[in-house]
């Protein structure tokens, strides 16, 4: 049969045909464009509109960037060079660079301190942000608040040293008494720290020149640095307060619970700007007659109170999201409240609330611009006040505001990207 078959059929293919290339419309760029840009007439129309919008923006912005002038001393000079052609007067940025970043009062020859403080901030923040780095670096993070304070505000090194010593002595006292109970430990911490600070006060007064940098009063802070200081200080201060408030709100003790609830709800119901006005005007009435303390500290207190109320709510969400079994398991292991909270509850609750905390932090950093309304010269205040009001630069809007947008965008966008990365890192469940 097979013979016959061989004769009756003229040709039998014995090897496989090579695979054919898919049609050109189904692969590569063409396919991608058909799928994503030109699927149906409505889609095509949208693409055309989008391209038109992008073209408009680019056509407007491109010559403005390319023809930009970077080295004149006033707007009039810049306009003279441009001769009516489109172009940005970026020279306002170069000429006022220091003012934009550091404000207009900080002594010029001391700028290195701020830059050093900023670099060290990155170093101090790194081990907190990335847990792959060696744990020893955390020591530096603990030291940073004192170094940073000394670098930015100046004055004798003794002041931050005494503050640090207070914490260390307090901690030692806490460790000594901790086995009795957590509450006694906390009390011992408080007493020891206060005694150390009290004694250290004499030391500072007796040697005001010890390793002193030129002291800069805080009303001289300004520019983007002020935003950074307020943002970093307030976020880091509001975290512990927020945790305490959240725990207080969850607590079984009615009086403590109600104090926390009233505080949180009151703060959350009031816009930040109102609180800042309070800090500016009213707060002085509530202090002993004759005391004045800086506006910047009053503002830090208010922003911290504001942020800690929001963070407390976020953490409360995290606490509520923990399964009941975790609390019961901790109890059944015989841990007391402080141990259970520190070892079992908080690590999990904080992990859940990371995205929320980062949201609050970004919002808070953006809200630091509000201090310009109570006549502090942060970045926005510098732009609105000394720069736009000066005779040289009256009328430069796009360049300055574009710069402000750029700075804030960089910081906030990188924080939010970081939080997304962190969420992926901490994801221990299986999805």
């Amino acid at each position: 049969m097979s013979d016959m078959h061989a004769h009756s059929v003229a040709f039998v293919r014995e090897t496989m045909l090579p695979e054919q290339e898919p049609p050109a419309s189904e692969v590569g760029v063409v396919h991608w464009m058909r799928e994503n840009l030109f699927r149906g007439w409505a889609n095509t129309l949208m693409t055309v509109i989008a391209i038109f919008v992008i073209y408009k923006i680019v056509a407007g912005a491109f010559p403005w960037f390319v023809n930009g002038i970077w080295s004149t001393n006033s707007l009039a000079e810049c306009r003279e060079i441009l001769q009516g052609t489109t172009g940005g007067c970026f020279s306002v940025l170069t000429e006022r660079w220091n003012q934009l970043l550091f404000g207009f009062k900080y002594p010029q020859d001391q700028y290195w301190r701020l830059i050093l403080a900023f670099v060290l901030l990155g170093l101090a923040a790194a081990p907190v942000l990335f847990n792959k780095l060696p744990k020893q670096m955390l020591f530096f993070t603990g030291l940073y608040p004192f170094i940073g304070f000394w670098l930015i505000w100046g004055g004798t090194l003794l002041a931050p040293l005494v503050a640090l010593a207070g914490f260390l002595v307090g901690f030692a006292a806490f460790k000594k008494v901790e086995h009795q109970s957590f509450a006694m430990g906390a009390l011992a911490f408080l007493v020891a720290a206060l005694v150390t600070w009290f004694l250290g006060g004499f030391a500072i007064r007796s040697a005001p020149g010890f390793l002193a940098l030129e002291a800069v009063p805080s009303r001289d802070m300004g520019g983007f640095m002020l935003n950074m200081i307020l943002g970093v200080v307030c976020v880091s201060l509001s975290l512990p307060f927020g945790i305490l408030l959240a725990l207080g709100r969850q607590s079984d003790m009615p009086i403590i619970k109600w104090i926390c609830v009233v505080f949180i709800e009151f703060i959350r119901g009031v816009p930040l700007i109102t609180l800042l006005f309070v800090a500016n005007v009213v707060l002085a009435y509530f202090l002993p007659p004759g005391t004045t303390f800086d506006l910047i500290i009053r503002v830090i207190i208010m922003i911290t109170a504001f942020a800690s109320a929001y963070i407390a709510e976020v953490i409360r969400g995290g606490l509520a999201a923990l399964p009941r079994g975790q609390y019961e398991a901790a109890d059944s292991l015989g841990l007391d409240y402080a141990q259970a909270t520190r070892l079992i509850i908080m690590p999990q609750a904080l992990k859940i609330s990371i995205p929320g905390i980062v949201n609050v932090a970004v919002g808070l950093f953006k809200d630091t611009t509000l201090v310009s309304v109570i006549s502090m010269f942060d970045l926005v205040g510098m732009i609105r006040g000394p720069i736009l009001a000066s005779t040289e630069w009256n009328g430069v809007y796009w360049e300055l505001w574009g710069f402000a947008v750029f700075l804030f965008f960089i910081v906030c966008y990188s924080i939010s990207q970081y939080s997304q990365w962190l969420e992926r890192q901490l994801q221990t469940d299986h999805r």
Partner: protein
Amino acid sequence: MSTVTDPPVESFRLSQLINDTRYRSITFQFIALILLIFAMAYLGWNLVQNLAAAGLNISYDFLGEPAGYDINQTLIDYNSQSTHWRASMVGVLNTLLVAVMGCIMATIVGVFVGVLRLSPNWLIRKLMSVYVEIFRNVPVLIWILIIMAVFVAVLPQPRDFRGDDAEASMLWEAFAFTGRGFYLPAPIYEPGSWLVVTTFIASLVAIVVYRRYTTRKLYNEGVLLPRAWPTAALFFVPTLLMFFVLGMPISLEYPELAGFNFQGGIYMRNSLLSLWFALSIYTAAFIAENVRAGILAVSKGQTEAAASLGMRPNRIMNLVVLPQALRVIIPPLISQYLNLTKNSSLAIAVGYMDLTGTLGGITLNQTGRAIE
């Protein structure tokens, strides 16, 4: 026979106050309460001392005194002889005005952008995420100031409308967009106009009732009645009919150039406009994210199930995806509205007189009464 003895009565020792969990919470609360009372008393004592030193006393009488300052944009009658109370009412209304307008516009823009972020078109998707990221990550105060600067710098001043070959011209002789604000035609209500307004409101009610009816019909009997064109018809026809039958009782007052400025019509100051636009587009970026998250939260199985039942994409969106997405979207949407209302206190930065501006700003400056 054994007797059950009572457990020995423990004598109360002082150390139980801190070591025994039964008493510890009471101790802590007592300490907290004492501290709170002391802090309050301390602050109150300082307050009394400071006020005595400054020659002030707490009273709300100032609310009844003439304010003595003008407010540039008001919804109710107000002049500089009105009381501080009246001034603060103007402030409240202005806050509400910008908050309501902002919420409406932010919702429209936000939903639009949020849906477009899920569009199959790659370019649109990217464009919208750039918009969202840029506006979310920059303080709203900067946006308010930028838009204010753009209004002042880009739009023509009223004097540019002057002359025969003016640099700027009004849109349809009715709208003037100037650097000082927008001038819009204002409606003038003549006798009989209330009928038109009533008809309009009645037709709005009718639209709601009709749409409810169609929904019920669909769910109970599976009959799908048309919704789009009856809604449009109900919206326009009765009102227009009434309008022309009564002989056009509502006319428009157009803004006109008089002297150095426009007169007549509705005048929206650029401070109000920039606040409104900035708050709207800023909040819209957040709302867009909420909308996107809400739509993504509806599992793909729902869409596929609806498709396998033979529903068309439009109807899948309306009947299956949106009702489930709204449940996720609405709570964060409400909190965004609250944020917008709170952010409207930034009005003070551009000189729009809201509550913070009237009560917290000028009244405070004049009377020195910060605490009340």
